[in-house]
């Protein structure tokens, strides 16, 4: 336990220095006293005894120093004044400190966020030998995930390879859970083969896991529940096994509860059997599933992949259409479920390097500012050197200053990254795998600290070496004069580069920020608080379980009749004001290119896409959409007829706000890869308001073209407008109705939140904040950078200006000279910057600024010019005030 005593003392020495020094003093005094007494005993006079003792003892101050030096923290003590000075310098140059720190903070945030991503990339689920769990997948010829593994592949691989055992599959599905007498709501269900539980090697807490017998078609539907869900939704009822709940209206029996912390395969709290009937699915058909298993003992991943490839040629030969271009791969499980497995390690590392380079780029800019400041401290440095400070000592001091700045930036950057991370997780808690903890791991914090040191090196050491390395002697000789570093073409080049980068990059960054801001501001024009949109799904066969009540379809009815019955029953509910339907929910539909008879009136119409959807005659009425011209659809408009209704933004985009009624238009559906024939010509019979008012920003409106529709085999979006009761209160009732009319059919319900933009809206708003923060810091950094460099350049010319004045130059001539040089530097920078911006915009296909470069580039250029000229004016005024005699004396 001696080390405890020792450390207690160490800390005491560090934090209670005054007390420790006092004790040292007391100890010395005691020593002197004893020595004096000894001398007295030897027969000296008191005075002589005392003098002799002091003489033997020597200089107390020197001892004190030596005693201090013997302590462990001596190097720290030596640094203390540096740290103090550093903090003072930071406070003395607030503009430089704030912009420098903000810029570097954003750099650190980007780099650490990426570093956290790397941690996910190399993560493994926290299961027994979790790193042996792998996923099997296909990449297409472009090395991208084709999301094309199906149950057919599971079946093939189960029979043809031996490197990966317990092959399993899951798919993620969103269902609506209702517990009799309990909670209801949307849940995420893992439809997984029973073997998935064998892969996880985690036994259930209660009951049993899923068994292969649960997978058989016609077997009773079994459900396993996660621990959190069991506690939250079922009150930790230990008798839950055997209870019945409903998913999307289908009854399921709870067969087991999993222990705490188990949310495999991704972030799931409900598990249902993946009905595995490969015979029903041909190659490449059926839903996409994620296939995974455990590497057989002793088999490396590369060997498993090699075995898989040996199976592949046969498939490619037999089924060239489906498998001809696919390459099977075996990857760590985490990489596949995070969908990052298409990137090889070196790409991930390169990206990480680039993320760190962002910080390095910012640091270089800050370094040039610091260099300017350091150069203006030439005199101070020279004096300190003359007084005996070594170059190392001065460089250390400047490094500590930079480190103080970059450490602040690193802390801020970590906070930003952490906040961003938590925000992302809070928007959708299930969006990350369950084993990824929100927050920053210790390794990330360490990485950020490493980045701080790197940034401090760039910001502090490089300018310090440059400033201390040369002509110190001459600086000393010229002390009192204003000349320090000789600035020539290098400095001009630096300014030109700085201006050019600002003009090229800033408009793009601002454009992205501005566009994402505007995109996030689409307000619905319909009473969103009263609306619900539901949709029956058709993509899966209805479950074969015995229905609770005879359904329309089982009585021989069609899907159309099912939907009609659903609408009829919902309309009869109390609190329902109106029910209508459309082929697509608001703000979506089939994207089409529009052709206008007699030519297109607006220039950019060719690249604008309209959304086409079929609507019921009552649609605009239920949504409360204003009819601006003509008429809405009536009973006379049959599907397939020639009448169409278009939205306000449609008219603006395609008809140039001209007369719309009576014009004929036709659309060509945009479908990937296929060439589609244009549709028939349609006559515009009405113009309605947009469903979402996109703040009058034409770029973000989605022009809509409506066609009459009727209920048919295709699923429709049913829109319900309520009155008197909140839409949310109606949801349980809707599920009840759906359970009777269409038992087992999956259904989605969207309430006011989703219609308002919901999660997407929040995500967009959040990214807007992030992008704005980056923009702001880059903007500030550029403006301050340019001003600092230009003002510094003028400051360096004080003496020259003074001499010119002394030689009789008029103030006007001198001012002209000063501004001419600044203007030249700015003009050069602007020219290069505008050229770069134009090139970048062209390379991106107009996506970066979306046609706003004519506003953004001049705006930024004006800002840069203003910053540059202002920065010139201040020092220029000061320089004119320099008395010619003073300037001459400095020669």
């Amino acid at each position, binding site marked *: 336990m001696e080390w405890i005593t020792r450390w207690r003392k160490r800390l005491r020495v560090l934090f209670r220095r005054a007390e420790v020094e006092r004790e040292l003093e007391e100890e*010395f005094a005691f020593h002197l006293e004893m020595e004096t007494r000894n001398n007295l005993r030897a027969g000296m006079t008191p005075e002589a005894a005392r003098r002799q003792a002091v003489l*033997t003892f020597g200089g107390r101050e020197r001892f004190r120093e*030596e005693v201090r030096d013997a302590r462990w923290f001596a190097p720290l003590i030596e640094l203390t004044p540096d740290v103090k000075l550093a903090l003072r310098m930071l406070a003395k140059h607030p503009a430089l400190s704030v912009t420098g720190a903000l810029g570097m903070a954003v750099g650190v945030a980007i780099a650490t966020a990426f570093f956290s991503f790397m941690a996910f990339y190399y993560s493994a689920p926290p299961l027994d030998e979790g790193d042996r769990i792998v996923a099997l997948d296909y990449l297409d010829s472009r090395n991208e995930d084709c999301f094309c593994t199906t149950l057919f592949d599971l079946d093939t691989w189960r029979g043809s390879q031996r490197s990966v055992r317990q092959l399993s599959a899951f798919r993620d599905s969103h269902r609506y859970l209702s517990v009799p007498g309990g909670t209801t709501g949307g849940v995420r269900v893992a439809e997984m083969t029973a073997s998935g539980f064998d892969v996880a090697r985690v036994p259930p807490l209660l009951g049993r896991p899923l068994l292969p017998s649960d997978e058989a078609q016609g077997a009773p539907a079994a459900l396993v529940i996660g621990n959190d869900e069991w506690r939250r939704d079922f009150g930790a009822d230990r008798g839950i096994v055997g209870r019945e709940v409903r998913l999307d209206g289908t009854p399921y029996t709870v067969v087991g509860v999993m222990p705490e912390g188990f949310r495999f395969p991704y972030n799931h709290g409900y598990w249902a059997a993946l009905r595995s009937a490969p015979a029903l699915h041909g190659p490449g058909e059926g839903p996409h599933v994620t296939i995974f298993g455990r590497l057989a003992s002793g088999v490396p991943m590369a060997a498993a992949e090699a075995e898989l490839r040996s199976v592949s040629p046969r498939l490619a030969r037999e089924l060239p259409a489906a498998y001809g271009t696919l390459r099977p791969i075996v990857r760590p499980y985490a990489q596949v479920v995070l969908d990052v497995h298409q990137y090889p390690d070196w790409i991930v590392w390169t990206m990480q390097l680039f993320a760190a380079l962002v910080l390095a780029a910012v640091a270089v800019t800050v370094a040039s500012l610091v260099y300017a400041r350091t150069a203006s401290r030439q005199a101070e440095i020279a004096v300190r050197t003359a007084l005996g400070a070594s170059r190392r000592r001065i460089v250390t001091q400047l490094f500590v200053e930079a480190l103080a700045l970059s450490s602040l930036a690193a802390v801020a950057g970590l906070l930003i990254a952490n906040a961003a991370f938590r925000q992302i997780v809070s928007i959708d808690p299930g969006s990350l795998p369950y084993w990824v903890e929100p927050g920053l791991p210790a390794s990330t914090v360490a990485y950020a600290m490493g980045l701080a040191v790197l940034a401090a090196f760039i910001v502090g050491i490089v300018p310090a070496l440059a400033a201390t390395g040369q002509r110190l002697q001459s600086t000393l000789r010229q002390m009192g004069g204003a000349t320090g570093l000789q600035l020539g073409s290098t400095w001009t080049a630096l300014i030109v580069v700085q201006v050019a980068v600002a003009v090229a990059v800033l408009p793009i960054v601002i454009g992205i920020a501005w566009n994402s801001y505007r995109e996030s501001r689409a307000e619905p024009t319909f009473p969103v608080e009263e609306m619900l949109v539901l949709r029956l799904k058709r993509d899966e066969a209805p479950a074969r379980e015995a229905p609770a009540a005879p359904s329309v379809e089982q009585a021989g009815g069609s899907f159309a009749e099912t939907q009609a019955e659903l609408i009829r029953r919902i309309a009869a509910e109390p609190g329902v004001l109106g029910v209508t339907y459309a082929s697509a929910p608001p703000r979506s539909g089939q994207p089409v290119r529009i052709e206008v008879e007699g030519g297109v009136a607006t220039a950019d119409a060719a690249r604008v896409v309209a959304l086409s959807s079929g609507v019921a005659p009552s649609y605009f009425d239920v949504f409360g959409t204003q009819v601006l011209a003509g008429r809405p659809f009536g009973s006379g408009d049959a599907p397939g007829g020639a009448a169409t209704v278009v939205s306000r933004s449609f008219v603006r985009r395609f008809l140039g706000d001209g007369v719309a009624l009576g014009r004929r238009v036709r659309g060509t559906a945009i479908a990937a890869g296929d060439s589609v024939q244009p549709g028939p010509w349609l006559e515009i019979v009405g113009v309605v308001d947009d469903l979402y008012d996109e703040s009058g920003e034409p770029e973000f409106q989605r022009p809509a073209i409506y066609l009459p529709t009727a209920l048919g085999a295709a699923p429709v979006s049913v829109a319900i407008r309520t009155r008197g009761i909140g839409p949310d209160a109606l949801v349980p009732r809707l599920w009840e109705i759906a359970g009777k009319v269409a038992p087992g059919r999956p259904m989605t319900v969207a309430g006011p939140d989703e219609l308002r933009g919901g999660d997407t809206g929040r995500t967009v708003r959040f990214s807007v904040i992030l992008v704005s923060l980056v923009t702001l810091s880059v903007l500030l950094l550029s403006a301050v950078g340019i001003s600092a460099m230009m003002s510094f350049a003028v400051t360096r010319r004080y003496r020259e200006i003074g001499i010119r004045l002394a030689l009789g130059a008029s103030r006007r001539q001198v001012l002209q000279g000063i501004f001419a040089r600044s203007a030249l530097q700015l003009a050069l920078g602007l020219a290069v910057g505008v050229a770069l911006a134009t090139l970048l915009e062209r390379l991106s296909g107009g996506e970066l600024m979306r046609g706003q470069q004519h506003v953004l580039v001049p705006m930024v250029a004006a800002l840069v010019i203003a910053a540059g000229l202002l920065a010139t004016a201040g020092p220029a005024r000061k320089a004119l005030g320099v008395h010619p005699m003073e300037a001459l004396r400095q020669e």
Partner: protein
Amino acid sequence: MSPHASNDILRGTLDLLILKALSLEPMHGWSIAQRLEQLSGDALRVGAGSLYPALQRLEERGLLVSEWGVTEENRRARYYELTGAGRSALGEESRSWREYVRMMDTILRTT
């Protein structure tokens, strides 16, 4: 730099001597100096300028602990005491010192 080297040798020797002086009982700084003077037959005078830094160093290395106590004359003084580590360091360093002397002696005799 040679002055440094000779300092280091002196320093190492002084550390060993202090440990030896403290091996019998805890002592304050002045009496350590006195004891060393005595033991060396007045041949060695340890100045305060070497003594106190050495005490700090040894305490920092965990070979000594110090505690404020009271002398026989009722005067407050800082007493230094060997720790377990100090005791074994004394044994170790005495041994290697003797070996060093023996080696030097052998060399000096043969050449």
